């Protein structure tokens, strides 16, 4: 149980037990009112049939009306209380996740950048919170009420209490267990069919034109029908246990009533049970099973949330380095922006980079970057240039070799952050104002500074066109910003960072010919003002301004290095570089 990811994730919600207690109490009160209503009205009617004085019935009559009201009210309170517990827990879990991810080992975090892991976190946290509302609390309420009802009936007639307990186990334990098994079987079998369905549907829509022209729409639709009938067969197999679980509900209720009649009537005849109590013992079970009716659904909810919980726990477990770094690293908020005097701004010796669990992508790289100078790393796409940047920034450990920034080794993000700022290709544009997006780099950027920087990177006309200027909110869907503008904004943010070394990944991708000017400005120091700049790019236009161009080949080995001109002509000319340059020139602009 301790290893169960769901249990661990639920514990991470750090729910307040008093609030849970209050929610369960309200739930027990609400559903208990319904049971009490049934029991007291059974007593009322049976007793009334004996035609006693009306005063005998008055307490029962009042309590029946009271239970009629308290049921609805307490149920309302319970729903609010349980959602409050879950929402508080979800807020806590999000903070814990953030804290853990913010201090996790850089390698683990970088791994998250691949795929949609982070995007799913929101839904996963919701799913774990849902477990509390739809799974655990209803189970607790049903447990308390089940025991209480069985004991109460047992006081009237022990045999009736026992049979009720047995029927409650049938509806509250056996039925959920069967429902869960059914859903698990369906999900296993249906997953493949659903994946096929999605893929065929996607191909049909993506390739609609080509499939139409080649007359392949009908065969693809046949493929779709086949996948759908596989799904139907899987669902059909799962429907057998599902139907069994659903039928166990009324079966348990009916059995409880029949059993109460079977044991209650002889007991009444023999004088062991008062006739009025017989009505209570027989009719109360009709209301008791309302609390167990939700349990098959709760069991399925638990099953479905387990996958979400597993992802969350995995996310937290990818934090082996969490303890390596102190929680609060003392670091000046705005470090000295002046270039470092001691040694080069950034140096790498015999550097080998790669993912921690993968093979080496870039081999034996030597690199020296003086303040105010620039280096461009070029090469075919997909060879590991981005990995190189992550390593230089201290976000990935080097496989071999050393990286020094300002003379000190870059051996972890905490120490490197002040000296090296990285702007990745997929850097995030936050769902906030333009100014706040720029302040992500440095908290004290003034509006004037921001405006100046925007015009420096060619965003002046875009900024003027925005309805509220710097205060305009950029939606996270980036609807207000095109690919090229986004790229320029990221460059502006990078330039505002206080670090003396700037690493930029494909800063001018998605930019038209004017991107050449921006790249040139980054490389010739006119934008970066005395800082060291390293740019990774696969386009060569504008590289004539770079202090040094390093050409990597597909194996990640340095093929050639020198200035742009040296690589094109002269004794160190690289044929591969010239071929790439010519191909790029050939492209019809």
């Amino acid at each position, binding site marked *: 149980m301790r290893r169960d990811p769901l249990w661990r994730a639920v514990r991470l919600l750090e729910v307040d037990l008093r609030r849970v207690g209050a929610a369960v109490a309200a739930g027990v009160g609400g559903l208990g009112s319904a049971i009490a209503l049934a029991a007291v009205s059974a007593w009322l009617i049976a007793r009334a049939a004996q035609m006693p004085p009306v005063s005998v019935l008055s307490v029962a*009559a009042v309590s029946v009306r009271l239970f009629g009201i308290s049921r609805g009210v307490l149920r309302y309170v319970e729903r*609010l209380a349980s959602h409050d517990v879950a929402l508080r827990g979800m807020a806590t879990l*999000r903070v814990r996740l953030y804290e853990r991810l913010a201090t996790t080992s850089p390698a683990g975090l970088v791994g998250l950048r691949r795929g949609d892991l982070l995007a799913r976190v929101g839904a996963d946290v919701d799913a774990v919170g849902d477990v509390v509302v739809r799974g655990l609390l209803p189970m607790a309420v049903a447990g308390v009420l089940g025991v209480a009802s069985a004991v109460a009936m047992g006081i009237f007639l022990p045999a009736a209490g026992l049979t009720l307990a047995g029927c409650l186990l049938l509806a509250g334990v056996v039925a959920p267990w069967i429902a869960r098994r059914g859903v698990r079987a369906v999900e296993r079998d249906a997953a493949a069919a659903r994946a096929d369905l999605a893929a065929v549907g996607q191909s049909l829509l993506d390739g609609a034109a080509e*499939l139409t022209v080649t007359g392949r729409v009908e065969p693809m639709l046949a493929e779709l029908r086949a996948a759908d009938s596989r799904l139907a067969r899987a669902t059909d197999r799962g429907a057998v246990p599902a139907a069994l679980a659903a039928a166990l509900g009324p079966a348990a209720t009916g059995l409880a009533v029949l059993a109460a009649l079977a044991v209650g009537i002889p007991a009444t005849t023999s004088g062991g049970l008062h006739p009025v109590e017989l009505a209570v013992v027989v*009719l109360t079970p009709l209301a008791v099973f309302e609390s167990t009716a939700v349990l098959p659904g709760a069991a399925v909810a638990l099953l479905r949330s387990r996958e979400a919980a597993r992802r969350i726990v995995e996310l937290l477990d990818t934090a082996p380095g969490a303890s390596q770094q102190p929680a609060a690293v003392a670091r000046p908020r705005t470090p000295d922006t002046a270039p470092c005097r001691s040694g080069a701004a950034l140096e790498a010796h015999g550097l080998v980079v790669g993912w921690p669990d993968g093979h080496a992508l870039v081999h034996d790289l030597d690199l020296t970057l003086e303040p105010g100078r620039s280096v461009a790393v070029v090469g075919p796409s997909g060879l590991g240039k981005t990995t190189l940047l992550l390593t230089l920034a201290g976000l990935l450990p080097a496989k071999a070799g050393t990286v020094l920034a300002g003379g000190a080794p870059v051996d972890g993000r905490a120490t490197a952050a002040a000296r090296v700022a990285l702007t990745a290709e997929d850097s995030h544009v936050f*769902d906030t104002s333009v100014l706040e997006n720029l302040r992500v780099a440095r908290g004290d950027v003034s509006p004037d500074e921001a405006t100046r920087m925007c015009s420096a990177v060619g965003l002046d006309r875009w900024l003027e066109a925005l309805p509220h200027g710097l205060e305009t909110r950029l939606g996270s869907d980036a609807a207000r910003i095109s690919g090229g503008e986004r790229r320029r904004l990221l460059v502006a943010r990078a330039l505002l960072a206080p670090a003396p070394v700037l690493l930029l990944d494909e800063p001018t991708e998605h930019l038209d010919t004017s991107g050449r000017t921006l790249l040139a400005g980054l490389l010739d120091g006119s934008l970066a003002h005395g800082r060291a700049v390293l740019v990774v790019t696969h386009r060569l236009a504008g590289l004539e301004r770079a202090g040094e161009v390093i050409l990597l080949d597909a194996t990640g080995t340095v093929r050639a290095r020198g200035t742009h001109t040296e690589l094109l002509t002269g004794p160190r000319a690289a044929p591969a570089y010239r071929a790439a340059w010519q191909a790029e020139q050939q492209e019809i602009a």
Partner: protein
Amino acid sequence: MRPLDPRLLRRARSARRYVLLTAGLGGLTAAAVVAQALLLARALSPVVLRTADWPDVAPLVGWLAAAVATRVLLTWLQERFAHRSAVRAIAELREQVLARAVTLGPRWVAAHPGVTTLATRGLDALEPYFVRYLPQLLLAATVTPATLAVVLAHDLIAAVTITVTLPLIPVFMVLIGRMTQGYADRRLAAMTRLGNQVLDLLAGLPTLRALGRERGPERQVAELGDAHRRATMGTLRVAFLSGMTLELLTTISVALVAVGVGFRLVFGDLSLTTGLAVLVLAPEVYLPLRQVGAHFHASADGVAAAEQAFEVIEQPTPARGTAPAPDLARTTVRLRGVTVAAPDRATFAPTDLDLTVAPGEVVALAGPNGAGKSTTVAVLLGLLDPDTGEVLLDGPDGPVPLGEIDPETFWPQVAWVPQRPVIEPGSVREAVQRGRPVPEAALASAAALTGFDRVVAGLPHGWDQQLGQGGVGLSLGQRQRLALTRALLAPAALVVLDEPTAHLDADGERVVLEAVGRLRAEGRTVLLVAHRTSLLDLADRTVTVASSALAAP
């Protein structure tokens, strides 16, 4: 939103059968519920009154057991067939949506990005509608009136109590719904925004770390989480009101019925049997209504998805021509003054394009990105109607507008390699042949020319290698080679290649040049969308496509 849309029954055959089955089961359930209540009351009351003993009522208890068994069986049947019918009905709708979307063409699909989600996942939301909501809706239409009628037959006053409160349920639900809707909508917007901001911070964490700014926002995450909780609770306090009203009304009514029956029993106005029967039946009258209320929200997504599906299915299909296409080997294709407005952009791409492709010619289309080269291809293939201008097929029997031609006679004469070719699931051989067997020698020779033979040699099962959905397992460059091989093998007089070198290296470029050479030697007409000058050199003629800004109004 209608509870049961007649279009659903019209469009999905399985839904029709299912509704009939469920209605039948609902009627039987009503009978079982009534029988259960009456038998229970009859078995219980003489024992309570000490007028009978176990042997006297044992047969009644036996019948009661039969009624219980019937109800259990009916529940089992309902659940057993609900899932099956739901999946089938969803499949029927899915197929119709996809078929219609494909007919409406790529531009329409691009302009309606929601269709993909609808067809792949959205329609699955109909399952709770079919499995949970619909049965309860039909029970509300069968069990509620049946039980009410039986109560009426037994006890007029109890029946009146129920009849008075029953209509209050929908009235109050609607009233509260109206009152709270605006409030809930506003709160929901705030809630969504707060939730998104938290996710935004999490999503931006790598960026914050890359800039060394990851410490600090955790307070913001906590504050946003707290604000999110308060906003959500505010909404829930209002949203749960309708649920509370429903429960209050139903339980108070049952309580009132019970108390009323009790007092009339004291005065001897009623028999105990009747009293017990009414007491057991009263909650059953309300139960389906409560269930409909409980499953209403779960089914709302499904109903919304179904409505979206009907919108797609009911789109009129574009009219198609009927004239047979001329033999393309002897036909000149002419585009005259073709202009197409680009979607979402204030440009025409292409603008006023004239293009003539004579039989046996190799013509290249050039122009900057976004000029409308691929759009021109779509117009020429009859996939897109130009806003102005026309496409003529000038064959041996004189020129015919493309719009008048039955595309089923035109398309088989065309081989088209789009920028992202579709690779259908199946073996490599099937993907290349596309349902049209090709001699092994021709296959080998075409593959050798495009370099696809080396790709095949590298696959574990060669030509019989199964390709995943969408050709996963092949790189873009390999897919391009496959598509090129396919085009070489297709017996088409007109071959259209859209940026065939886009994902290929220098060796790949040579392959394309050779393939085009082979096509030219075979006397086929080739239209190339070119990206590199080497391709332009290969063409007999180059036509430049240009876009223009939309005239300011």
